[in-house]
Structure formats: C-alpha cells, structure tokens
C-alpha cells in the first residue's frame, strides 16, 4: 500500500522544505520527500501546480456526537473536515452527555475509528458536565485519548476551580483551552457591543467580557505553570495580553478563527443568524488586531470553531438563534484570501498555522512530512477560483455566512495515513 504525490511544490515548515518534489507514503507513513520518487504498485496523485503540505490540523471543532446527531455526526463532520483539507480535527466536549469521563472519551475514539475519514482527537471537559464546579476525570480522559481539556462554551467562572484545573492539567501534561467569556458581562448578549448592536436594538457582548477572563487566566497560568491556550481570540486587548505573557516566557498560546480575522460586526447584515457566534464578530479594529497578531507571530494556530446547528434552530428570531457557524470547508480559502494573497504572511507561515502550530500545543507528533511521520497530507491550490455552495456542504448543517463566496485557492485533496480520503 503506497501513494506517491507527484510533482507538487512541497512546503513542510517543520523540515524547512520548500521545493518541487514527490512525496512517497508507504504503509501509512511518510517514506520520503525527493524528486522522482516511485514505488511499485504505488497509487499516483498528480500535484503539478499545487501545494503539498503536511495534513492540516483543526484544533477546535464541534462534532455534536453523541447527543446532537441532527446537527452533525463524527462521520459527517469528518467528511466536511476532509473537504476543507483537514487530516486531523479535535472535537470539543460539549456533547450530550458532555465528554467529562473516560467512557465518553472512549466512545468518541471508537466511533471515530469506525466512522471518521480523518483523525479525530477528543478534548475532555474541565469540569463535570462543564458545570464549572467539580473537576472532571482529567487523568482518566487523557488515558482514553483526550489531548486537551476545555469547557468550551461554558467557561469556568470560579477562579479557584480554574486554578485547580490548571494544576491538574499541568500534572497530566495536557494543555488547558479556555473559551474566555465573563458570563456576567456577556449575559443576554447576542452580538458584539458596538454601534450596530445599539442601532439594531440588540443586547451587546462587550469586548471586555473576553478581556477580563483572558487577564484572569493569564495570572492563573503564571501561578500554576500550566500550558494555557486561548480559544478563538477576538479582541485587541486579549491579543495584546497573550502576546505580552508569551514574551514573558509563559506557556501561553492562542488560536484565531477565519471568521474573526475575515469579518467584523460592520459587515454583518442586520439580524442574520449566520453571523451569530461566540465570541461575536468584533469591531473592525479588533479584526485588524487579530490579523496583525497573526502576521506578527503572536497567534499559534488557525482553528475553525466549526459549530453546526440545524436550520430549524437558525430560522428563528435573532435573539433565539444558537451561537455558532460551520467553518471547516472555508477555512483554507479564507486564510489564503485574507492572510496570504494580501501579503500579510507567507504561504509557509500559513501552513505552520494549520500544522506545526496546533501540533506544538497538542503534541500530536503530526504536522510534518519528515520520514516516519504519519502519512497525512493536504494538497491545495493557491489560485483556483471556486465558489462555496452551502447546499453541497458535507456537513449536516448549513449555517455559514460564506454561501456563494468566491475563493481564490482551496483544498484539492486530503490524504490520511496514505489514503486519499477526499479529492476534488
């Protein structure tokens, strides 16, 4: 069983490779990167004119299984991931039941083994039921396969609980990922607090709701020495604080979503639930600050926060609609459009944000094309024009603001352990 990816421009930041070459995968592992590779009976994938990169990793996805299979399943979410160029995805624990025990973690791992077409790594809850009170079985979840802990969407408000969680996470060698939102400051809010929330009579979520939690967490990370990661960073102040902490030598990282650097509340059509998520689309200044932080190297990963919701839930009054949009299939296109084609970052840096960046946080031993590494490869174009047709999405849900968007460049093929799991 072998696959050779011929004649693409191979960019592997981990091994400082950027040249036209072939990539040979044998028995699910990278066997070599060199010109004119071949192997008897190897299947050939022609990548002429395309970029060949290590398999992309999305460290922030909601797969909705178990419990919300009407919105997404491990299978459907993995297919959307593959179509987005992702070979590995990490699923957040806000399922039903919450992934707060090794039983649920094992269930997800087992379902993924049977149903998923990409690698799925579960993220365990910080607290039981993500209720913010009692710590979940963090060590046992790690043994069952959890790669991080997070109460994403249900942030731990009690600072003492958060301190203990960081201490445990550190002792088990797991990063702690926080969705930073002061629930008292954000209570009742439906969009970013700013000129448009006031104009439209919608209750606002101030940027300060994120900032105060980032500030608290950074102090606790310093106190505990935990590896701490800010999910979907969205504000100017949060970006500055994380960068400051990082420069001081703390083990602190953050991720940015494509929608938070590509959109702002100023571009949002009034009361359109496909623009409703948490954190909300911030001001133009915040979106610019997130983009600048990416360009300056202060952001370690691009993550989608892919959050499927069925139409029945999004077809409601704006304030009743749930938060979240899908994003797996549009992430690469948006990163190319907003970061690479604009000259803000190099192609190699973008690939880092999808590979070595998340890998260094989660320590998955992936994200490289070095010999012996898992045979995960993302093949993409930087110039092919294509239009995102939401009705063709492989996700079970249709909640995206990018329907009809014309992209320049995007995924062409996704290879997982030497198998082409998706191609155009």
């Amino acid at each position: 069983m072998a696959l050779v990816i011929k004649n693409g421009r191979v960019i592997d930041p981990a091994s400082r490779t950027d040249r036209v070459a072939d990539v040979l995968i044998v028995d699910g592992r990278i066997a070599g990167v060199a010109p004119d590779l071949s192997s008897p009976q190897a299947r050939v994938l022609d990548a002429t004119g395309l970029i060949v990169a290590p398999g992309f990793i999305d460290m922030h996805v909601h797969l909705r299984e178990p419990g919300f299979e009407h919105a997404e399943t491990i299978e459907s979410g993995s297919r959307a991931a593959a179509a987005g160029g992702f070979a590995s995805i990490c699923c957040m624990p806000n399922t039903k039941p919450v992934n707060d025990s090794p039983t649920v973690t094992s269930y997800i791992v087992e379902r993924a083994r049977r149903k998923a077409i990409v690698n799925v790594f579960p993220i365990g809850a910080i607290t039981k039921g993500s209720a913010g009170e009692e710590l979940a079985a963090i060590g046992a979840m790690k043994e069952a396969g959890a790669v991080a802990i997070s109460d994403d969407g249900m942030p731990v408000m009690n600072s003492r609980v958060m301190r203990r969680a960081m201490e445990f996470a550190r002792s088990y060698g797991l990063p702690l990922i926080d969705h930073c939102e002061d629930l008292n400051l954000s209570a009742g809010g439906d969009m970013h607090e700013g000129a448009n929330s006031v104009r439209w009579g919608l209750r606002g979520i101030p940027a300060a709701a994120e900032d105060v939690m980032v500030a608290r967490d950074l102090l606790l990370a310093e106190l505990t020495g935990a590896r701490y990661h800010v999910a979907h960073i969205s504000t100017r102040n949060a970006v500055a604080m994380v960068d400051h902490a990082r420069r001081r030598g703390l083990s602190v990282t953050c991720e940015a979503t494509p929608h938070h650097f590509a959109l702002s509340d100023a571009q949002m059509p009034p009361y359109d639930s496909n623009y409703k998520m948490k954190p909300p689309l911030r001001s133009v200044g915040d979106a610019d600050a997130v983009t600048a932080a990416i360009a300056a190297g202060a952001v370690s990963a691009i993550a989608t926060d892919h959050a499927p919701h069925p139409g029945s839930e999004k077809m409601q009054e704006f304030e009743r609609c749930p938060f979240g949009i899908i994003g797996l299939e549009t992430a690469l296109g948006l990163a190319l459009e907003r970061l690479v084609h604009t000259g803000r970052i190099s192609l190699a840096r973008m690939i880092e944000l999808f590979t070595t960046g998340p890998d260094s946080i989660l320590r998955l031993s992936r994200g490289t094309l070095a010999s012996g590494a898992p045979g995960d490869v993302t093949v993409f174009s930087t110039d092919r024009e294509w239009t995102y047709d939401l009705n063709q999405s492989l996700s079970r849900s249709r909640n995206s603001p990018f329907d009809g968007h014309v992209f320049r460049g995007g995924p062409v093929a996704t290879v997982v352990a030497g198998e082409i799991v998706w191609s155009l």
Partner: protein
Amino acid sequence: MNAGLLGIEELDRAEIEAILTRARDFQPLQSQSLKKLDTLRGKMIVNLFYEASTRTRTSFEIAAKRLSADAVSITASGSSVTKGESLVDTLNTLAAMRPDAIVMRHAASGAPHFLARHLPTPIINAGDGAHEHPTQALLDARTILDRRSTLEGLRVAIIGDIAHSRVARSNVHLLSKFGARIVLCGPASLLPVELAQLAPGVTLTTDIREAIRDADVIMMLRVQLERQHEAAFPASEYFRFYGLRLEHLDLARPDAIVMHPGPINRGRELSSEVADFQRSVILNQVENGVAVRMAVLERVIG
C-alpha cells in the same frame, strides 16, 4: 416583494412626507360623526401582537376599520405560540390565509425583518424589541408639525431609558432626516455612547437640565422595566434625577411641548402636573395615531 413598513431608518424624506401629508387629510375625519371611508373595502389586515399592547393595537384596528378594511387581532397568549410553533411557521400559516398586510409587534428586535425575508405578505412593524416603532415616530412628527411649520432646526430632547427604547430610535431616525437637533438623555447605563452614531445631529447627556435647556420638544420615555434584565439604575432615584417636573419647563423654550408615547407612569418619569400641563400633547399623539396608521395602511395596501 415585501413592501411593508419595517422601520424609519430605511425611509427617505419624500416617503415620510407623503405619509405625514396624507395623515393630515385623515385628521378631520377623526372628529366627524361619520368616520368611515371605503378606501380599503375588501382588504384584510391581521394584527399579530406578541407583546402586550392596548393603544397601538387598538389604534391599528380603528385605522383599518375607518378605511373599511377587515381586521383580525391575535395576541400571542391565545395563539399557537404556546403549542411550540416557530414564528416563521405561524406567519406562513397566517400568510396562507391571504391577508393583505400583517401588522406585527414582537419583543425580539428584528423579528419583522427576519420574517420579511421569508414571507410575501407586507409586514408593518408595530414595534420590534428595542429596535424600531415606525408608526410612533410618524405620529410624533405629525403631532409636532401640527404646532410647528417645520422640524428643521428644532431642538428635541428625548429623555429616559434610551437603550431599550424603540420609540427613541425611530424618532432619532425621523427627526435627523429632517434636520432637527436631538439630545438624548438618561442615566449612563441606559445611554450607550454609540447612540451618538445613530444618525446625524444627535448629542448625549446624562443631565436632564442640559437636555431640556432651550428645547422645543421634550419627549419623555417610559421606564421599560420589562426590558431591563438587571438593575441598570436604582429605581428609587429615577424620578429625582430623570423625572420631568414643572420647574424643569422653565429651562425649555416658552412654547415647548411635552410628549410621551404612553402608557405614562405619573410620578416615575414625569410628575402628574406635567402630564396634565397645558402644553402636554400626549392625547393629541394618541389621536394622531389613528390618522397616521390610516395613511400607512393605505400606502402599504392601497
């Protein structure tokens, strides 16, 4: 497809002027013994109120009847809302009965805008959350113009819970389009600074005296306790700092008028003496409500 009336913000001056002029035609009718025209004979209007309302619903109903349209009024408590039907399904069901317009009030900002994207039937917004209440602003403008030749250059103070007020937003949009100077006044927690960007000519103050000084029009707003999800202001202090009293009126222009969208709370946002003050035009506003809504119904359906 949906040529209803969702808000003032998207109307231009000519459209507003047309409605206000037509409303003036309907004013004498209100005091005649025979009050009915057959302009909308055979037309059907559904009044769908998801929020308690006496004056607006009655006003729309009377306006419809004075134009000989049939009007059906539905309140949320007696409808399929309690059976778990979604808003868009309820509206689709009503639309299938082919009314000529749906007049709608809803507690969620943007609810009529959301529905207008999915329904062919014209929707007239009778108040959506804290967003807009277009017919209120139109009847307020009609009431001011009954006493002033123009809105241009007028100094209008709007005082109270601005943050949660759809009346304030619609009035700001309308008055600004006609060149009025608008001062918004309330406690800081009910007066987000972004309000200054709502429209040209808007300034903000937390000092009621500064707001009233040289005002031509003073619009008092009801304290909308049902829309406040927290104690944004100590209720016990409200009247002391933001209640309109007779002595305040000395600061305003000598011919200044006092307005209120109702229902008024004597002793909370204005004193009883102010409510009964000779230049209080609160009941004129109510009366103009019918004429303005006739003009709106005629424009949308006629």
